[in-house]
């Protein structure tokens, strides 16, 4: 028993370690000014077999490093869902949130656990039909997205507003101390700029809702909803590491109370033991080993090469069929949109530089939000319906919020699935993400006989895509003035949007970028 206690603590240690590693890598997903990020910030997504599998299926292409994903697959085949119980950072957060639930009720043993398998089937069917929706429900993509777009901005806002308050009141001694702490936090954990994202609120609410489900039942998400858990559950069906229960079991149910996965089943009332071969659902077991210690009879043990001692995974043929059918129906439903028509796509859908053609991009993008997290100007934002429902939460550049820094290639460096290619600086300079055009009705030198040319100043290409023409104009009083009026050289413009970001005509700027002319599209072109 003593030994087993240690095993549980090792599991806790492992969970803490991976959560810290995950959060540390998350913090490193930020520019320090160099061209390269220098840290393998996407390794958790690289290790995600569901992301790996569905991306390959949906895009019909192999990609990237799959050593990590294969390692997880093999580990699961041998050891069961250790990823869920020992590694998954979202699982660990659920584990922690579950501690808020006051009473530990035994597993209800409802059929709800099937939901995650049915969701997995739905996702896989869609992947076979070329649609990638994994990112919406994949636990790692969900966690990184929620952290990037919502929780981390919240954290930053809370800390900043606190320290700004102390700074503004300038209390003797205290402000000096708080500024010291603040400067340390800025270096250690705070983002360089306060991040802000469209839909940050709703994405945060979804996350908190999922977390709150732990109050209904511990690890609700892991037990009933997680499609990655379902995939690993199927892989662990014949895992070599198994639980066995000896004849000493009197069905007291002590093992049930701390079961994290809903794998331990209640014996029949009155102490009689139900069929022990069916007292444990191995596909549901997170290998947390919580059932081991509380057993008063010391009847529970884990070990290799035991006889099969698991309840069958019975999803029901009708349910499986319904799920497949739902996937088959969802695929065309998601695609009957005029947005795919040439010239009818949303013009503000400016994809990051290096993004693949839209069709392939959507098959690869798992909406993890890493590119938005790392975007140096904060201009990369999650889409809502600009790219259809299929493309929800995929990245779009919103120049009014932030432009694409000319020599920055970070979004391509962090993309886990290659939806955004990693570009070198030469490729980046040659990649158009759109074109800028001037609104002469708002531009100061055109409409208001005023000098400006900020767009020309900030244009980063060489030679500049924005050039100016000197014109003689008369103002209201009839005085002649010489003004420089800007023009865009469409062959040189890369659509970075800095002109739109910096245009002093705030709100609705006098120069705007649309995705027309983007390098990644053959059809969305203007120039011959």
């Amino acid at each position: 028993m003593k030994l087993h206690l240690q095993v549980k603590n090792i599991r806790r240690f492992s969970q803490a370690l991976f959560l810290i590693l995950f959060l540390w890598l998350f913090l490193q997903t930020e520019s320090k000014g160099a061209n390269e990020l220098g840290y393998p910030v996407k390794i958790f997504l690289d290790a995600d077999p569901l992301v790996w599998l569905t991306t390959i299926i949906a895009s019909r292409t192999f990609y990237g490093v799959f050593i990590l994903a294969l390692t997880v697959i093999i580990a699961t085949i041998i050891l069961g869902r250790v990823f869920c119980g020992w590694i998954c950072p979202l699982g660990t957060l659920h584990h922690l949130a579950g501690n808020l639930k006051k009473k530990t009720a035994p597993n209800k043993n409802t059929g709800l656990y099937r939901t995650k398998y049915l969701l997995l089937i739905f996702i896989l069917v869609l992947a076979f039909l070329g649609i990638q929706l994994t990112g919406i429900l994949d636990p790692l993509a969900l966690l990184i997205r929620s952290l990037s777009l919502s929780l981390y901005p919240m954290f930053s806002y809370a800390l900043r507003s606190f320290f700004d308050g102390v700074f503004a009141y300038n209390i003797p001694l205290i402000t000096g101390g708080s500024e010291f702490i603040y400067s340390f936090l800025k270096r250690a954990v705070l983002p360089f700029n306060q991040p802000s994202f469209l839909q940050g609120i709703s994405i945060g609410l979804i996350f908190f809702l999922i977390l709150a489900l732990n109050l209904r039942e511990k690890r609700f998400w892991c037990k009933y909803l997680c499609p990655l858990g379902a995939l690993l559950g199927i892989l662990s069906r014949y895992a070599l590491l198994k639980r066995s229960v000896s004849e000493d079991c009197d069905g007291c149910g002590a093992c049930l109370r701390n079961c994290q996965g809903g794998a331990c089943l209640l014996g029949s009332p009155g102490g009689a033991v139900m069929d022990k071969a069916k007292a444990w659902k191995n596909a549901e077991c997170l290998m947390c080993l919580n059932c081991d210690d509380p057993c008063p009879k010391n009847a529970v043990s884990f070990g290799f090469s035991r006889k099969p001692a698991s309840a069958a995974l019975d999803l029901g043929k009708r349910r499986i069929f319904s799920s497949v059918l739902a996937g088959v129906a969802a695929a065309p439903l998601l695609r009957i949109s005029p947005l795919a028509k040439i010239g009818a796509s949303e013009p503000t859908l400016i994809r990051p530089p290096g993004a693949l053609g839209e069709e392939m991009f959507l098959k690869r993008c798992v909406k993890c939000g890493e590119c938005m997290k790392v975007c140096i100007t904060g201009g990369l934002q999650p889409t809502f319906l600009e790219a259809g429902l299929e493309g929800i939460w995929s990245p779009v550049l919103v120049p009014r919020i932030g432009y694409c820094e000319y020599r920055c290639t970070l979004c391509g460096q962090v993309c886990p699935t290659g939806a955004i290619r990693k570009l070198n600086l030469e490729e980046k300079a040659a990649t158009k993400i759109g074109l800028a055009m001037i609104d002469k009705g708002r531009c100061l030198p055109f409409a208001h006989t005023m000098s400006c040319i900020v767009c020309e100043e900030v244009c980063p290409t060489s030679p500049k895509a924005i050039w100016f023409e000197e014109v003689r104009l008369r103002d209201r009083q009839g005085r002649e003035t010489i003004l420089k009026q800007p023009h865009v050289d469409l062959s040189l413009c890369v659509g970075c949007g800095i002109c739109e970001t910096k245009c002093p005509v705030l709100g609705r700027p006098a120069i705007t970028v649309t995705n027309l002319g983007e390098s990644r599209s053959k059809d969305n072109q203007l120039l011959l």
Partner: protein
Amino acid sequence: MNRRDFLKNAVMSGAALTIPLGMAPFLSLAGGADRPDLAVVRGPSPARITRAAVNELGGIRRFVSRGEIVVVKPNIGWDRTPEYAANTNPEVVAEIVRLCYEAGAKKVKVFDHPVSDARRTYKQSGIAAAATASGALVSFVDERKFKDMAIKGQLLKTWPLYTEIVEADKIINVPIAKVHGIATLTLGMKNWMGIMGGSRGRIHQRIDESLVDLARFVRPSLVILDAVRILVDNGPQGGSLSDVRRLDTVIAGTDQVAVDAFGTTLFGMKADALGCVRIGHSAGLGNMNISRLRIKRLTI
């Protein structure tokens, strides 16, 4: 200015700069009366010509005293590496920081409010590393430290400026010489845009008056114009090495108008070609008649 004019002038000014003045170090010791208004020093080492230029003006102790807090304000505006001449030369900045500490400065602060992302500009310009290595406190601009200030200029009455500039004992302006779409050139006075907060792009509507108002308000102790490399086209951020000319020169002075007037001639233009120079001259900020100034030229 076209390229032919530029080249002609570059050759002329280059020739002028090579006139040897071996007596220079001795003359500078002679005292205030003989001090030049501008020191124009040329040579292959940016650090050495910077030091020599300051010495020609009477040495760093003329400008910085023991225990003072000094702000050294380079141009770190753009995400470009030093060879593209979009930001002040890092070796020039580092040498000025060293000089200040030699004069006993308590703290030397280096910062700019860049146009591109600050992390990239600080890093890519090489300035953060070079200035830190010589002991400067290099910091990113803290938005909380922009405060509305009564500039009381002809055009700008108030504007949010960076408080660390106002709170410093001494300010040394270290701009780089570049062409610029609306201001024609960006030299010393234009560098004060880097202490502005708010929607500063608006001042382009009347750039020259605005710059003079800022220059009158800030009043640096010393201006060192970096012309080690100058950007002659596609300014102010460049991006092509073919637009960069290597002059291996720095110009030092205390008169903001005079430094900019001289800087203008590097581009083959007349000294009064810039609006901010003309307005600064007539407002009494400084003297643009460089023919009447004592200019010490030195090649080392």
